[in-house]
Structures are given as structure tokens and as C-alpha cells.
């Protein structure tokens, strides 16, 4: 299908070491994939390649027509008001209306005219999310978007992303360190090892997801084992 994302034989070297070494990955249209792996395993490099920010040496990448990225830092233009940031790159009349609607969706309608440097961490990240959503992307790329938020804000943001994804039906690729986050959001967890997909885990939990789901703990152990951790260590 046209909305699928296909990666075949991707190779990316930094100096002598191949960070991605013949990697294959599929993100079927509408799927939510979480990409896990230790630091330096190439998660972010893969996401940057899909976002067009990094060029691989070898391999073939097929992408759906429109992509949007949410970074770990909000990366808002501090000299543009929140709505102008969201509307940046949109063309034609109605850009402001679209921006306002996206900001309502992320529950930021009260900060439409605020300067970005006055936002809290969670608000800024929601503005970044609105900036991605307003483009109505076929593929949403999330690069550890909640890593620098406090625990409570992170939980709210995860719920928000789960909602937005099920409402919009786009594909999503989430890079994360956080096993729980992967289990809360994704259909599939993919673990990167030695530059390739080391393990794929189907996450068959009912939505909305809950930590208290009896299958949650089992999947969690499995995923932690794949990352080379035992549960005692990770607790």
C-alpha cells in the first residue's frame, strides 16, 4: 500500500563502525511501532534517515507521501508565537485556523498567542506535537519525545498521543528507551541490535492500555530480556 513504510538493507557508517548494518523494517499503514535499543544502537539514526535528516550509504527506503517529526526537545522557533510555530510551513489562507484546531487537539488552546520560551516543558512538547499533527502526516516520527518530561506529564502525554493516533489513523514510529512507554502505545516493539532488528514483539493488549493489565508484566519481562536486562535490575 502507498501508506506503508519499507526499509531494506539500510547501511549507515560513522567512521569504521556501521551503526545500521543491513537493516530491514516495515511500518504497515496505520501501525504504531516502538523502536527500542541501547544507547548507540542506531535508533535515532534510523529515525533521522526516515525524516530525511540523514543519508544512508546503502539501502532502499520507501516512505508514505507526508511525514512529520517530534523531537526530544520541542525545537520551537522562540521568535514565533505558539500558533505561528504550528502554522510554519503551511500555505494558503486558513493556516491560523488549522493551527488553532491542532492546538485544541493537544489541549493547548489557552497558549495560542504565547511566546515559546514562556511554556512549560510539557506545553512546549504539546506545541511540537501540534506542529506535527497540523500537517496531517501519513507517518509520525517520534524521537524520544517524552524523555525530558517529568513522570506525571509523561503519562499525560502518552495518553494524549495514544488518543491522537487512534483518532487520526496515521502510522507512527516511536524511538524510546522506556519499555513501559512502548507497551502503552505500540502494536509492535522492535529491538535494534548490532545495526539490525534483533527482536520483534507483538503487543496484543486491549486499548486503552493499562499498567495493571495482567499481560503487561509478561510482555515487559520479555522486552527487558531482549534488551539484556533482568526485571530485578530494571525495577
Amino acid at each position, binding site marked *: 500500500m502507498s501508506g506503508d513504510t519499507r526499509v531494506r538493507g539500510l547501511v549507515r557508517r560513522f567512521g569504521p563502525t556501521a551503526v545500521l548494518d543491513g537493516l530491514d523494517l516495515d511500518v504497515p499503514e496505520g501501525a504504531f511501532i516502538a523502536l527500542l535499543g541501547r544507547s548507540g544502537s542506531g535508533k535515532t539514526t534510523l529515525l533521522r534517515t526516515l*525524516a*530525511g*535528516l540523514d543519508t544512508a550509504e546503502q539501502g532502499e527506503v520507501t516512505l508514505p507521501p507526508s*511525514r*512529520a*517529526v517530534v*523531537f526530544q*526537545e520541542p*525545537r520551537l*522557533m*522562540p*521568535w*514565533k508565537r505558539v500558533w505561528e510555530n504550528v502554522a*510554519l*510551513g503551511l500555505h494558503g489562507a486558513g493556516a491560523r485556523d488549522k493551527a488553532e484546531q491542532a492546538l485544541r487537539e493537544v489541549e493547548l488552546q489557552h497558549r495560542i498567542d504565547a*511566546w*515559546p*520560551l*514562556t511554556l512549560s516543558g510539557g506545553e512546549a512538547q504539546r506545541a511540537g506535537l501540534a*506542529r506535527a499533527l497540523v*500537517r496531517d502526516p501519513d507517518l509520525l516520527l517520534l524521537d524520544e519525545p517524552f524523555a525530558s518530561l517529568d513522570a506525571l506529564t509523561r503519562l499525560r502525554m502518552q495518553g494524549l498521543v495514544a488518543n491522537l493516533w487512534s483518532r487520526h489513523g496515521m502510522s507512527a514510529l516511536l524511538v524510546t528507551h522506556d519499555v513501559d512507554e512502548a507497551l502503552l502505545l505500540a502494536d509492535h516493539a522492535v529491538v535494534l541490535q548490532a545495526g539490525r532488528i534483533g527482536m520483534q514483539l507483538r503487543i496484543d493488549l486491549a486499548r486503552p492500555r493499562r499498567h495493571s493489565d495482567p499481560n503487561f508484566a509478561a510482555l515487559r519481562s520479555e522486552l527487558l530480556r531482549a534488551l539484556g536486562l533482568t526485571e530485578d535490575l530494571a525495577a
Partner: protein
Amino acid sequence: MPERASTLTLPSTAPSTKLAWPRLAWNGLNPRRAVTPLVVLLLWQAGSSLGYIPSRTVASPLAVLAALRELMASGALPHHLGVSLLRVVAGLSIAIVLGTVLALSAGLSKLGDDLIDAPIQMARTLPFLALVPLFILWFGIGETPKIALVALGSIFPIYLNLYAGIRGTDPKLIEAASTLGLSRAALIRHVVLPAALPNALTGLRYAIGISWLSLVVGEQINADAGIGYLMMDARDFMRTDIIMVGLLVYAMLGLLSDQGVRALERHALAWRPSARMGR
């Protein structure tokens, strides 16, 4: 335990009253800060009136005031001030246009960088006031050498700061903008130029300071009008009161133009937390 409670309640009131004082002072509301300048003025006037300070050396404050009134009434000061202002405005305008064009060319293109940056970095190490003799040979003794001197002096801060601002744009913001599908022109307009604006305005402030300095030098050589000429002319008649008026006018011009740029900064950089917090 009760001791602890008392140490907890006390500091909450004490520092707030202590902090209120310096803040008032910064706003210029503290009359104590006016004491020293006033005392100096009074001593100066007393010294002059009692004959300890000869008017050949420095005129008394009252004499300076009288000279100011006289120069205003005769229309001499407005005339010379107008000439000086015109020179600075013309020179500065040339510097702003040329400096901006050069900085944009060098900052935004590799070719421009290679062709422009190195010669400007070399030229800026030259003390530009040393070019006065050459400028007189080239441009004669009319308005041109004076305007050229102002333009030459102030072009460097304009160029250097804007160039540094463009080059210093956060690459993460450029990346984010490129994922939003911005064209190169839109990227420059919405990301690079606004990112460089704080630097550019700092450059403008330096440039204005240097343009007054260049004017002082330029007007003391072969001029027949302008504040600098007024002062050199007064020297021939040992009119220290008029020389002091000239100094006063230069100081006021520097102060006013600096305030102007600050106002511009507050308006254009309203997005910066410091712009809102600083008064």
C-alpha cells in the same frame, strides 16, 4: 524544634525588604544616587566662582548653561547639530546597507563566505581612523571624507555581528524547519534571520557608538560646520564654555541613540524573557 520554626518564618519577610532597595535604585527612583553628581557640580561651580578654576581651563556650569542658551538663540547650535546629524545618518545608512548585504552574502553562501569574509576580517584589524590622510587625498575636504569615515568605522560591527548571528543559528532549529518542508528562502526568512536579529541589533548599537566617534575625528579636520567644527573654532578663542557645550551635545546624542536602539530591541525581541524582565 521551636527554634527551627522561628528561623523558618523570619527569612521570608526579611530578604524581601532588603531586595526592594536595589530595585528602586535601578529604576532611578533612589534620590541618593543623584547626590554625588550634584555635589560635584556644586563644587565645580563654587571653585569657578571663587576663582580656583580659571575659565581658560574649564568654564563653570553656569557659564556652560549660558553658552548653551546663547548658541541656541543665535541658531548656531541647531545649524551645526543638523550638519553633524546628517553626516552620521548618511554614513550609518551606507554602513547598514553595505554591511547587511555583505554579511548576508557571506553568511548564507559558501562562495560569498570565501570571497568576502577573509578580506573583511583583515580590513577590520586596521585602525580605520588612520585612513584619514588618505581619505582627504581621495575625497577632498567636503562632506564626502567625513561621511566615508563614519561609514567605514561602523560597517565592521554591522557586518561582524550579523555574520556571527547567521552562522550561529541553532542547527537543531534549522533541522526542525527543514522537516516542516520550508523552502530555502522561507528557512532564511523564518529561521535564520530572526535567529540573527539579536546579534544584528548588538552590532547596530556598537556601530552607532563608533559613528559618533568617527564624526568627532572627521569634524575636527578641515570642517566648516558641525559640532566638532564648533568646538575647534571655540578653541581658537579659548571659549571653554562652548567646548563644554559640544561635549554635552555629543554625550546626549550618544545616550539618545543608544536608548533608541534599546527601545527597538525591546520591541523586536519581545520573545526573549530578558526583554520582558528588563524593565
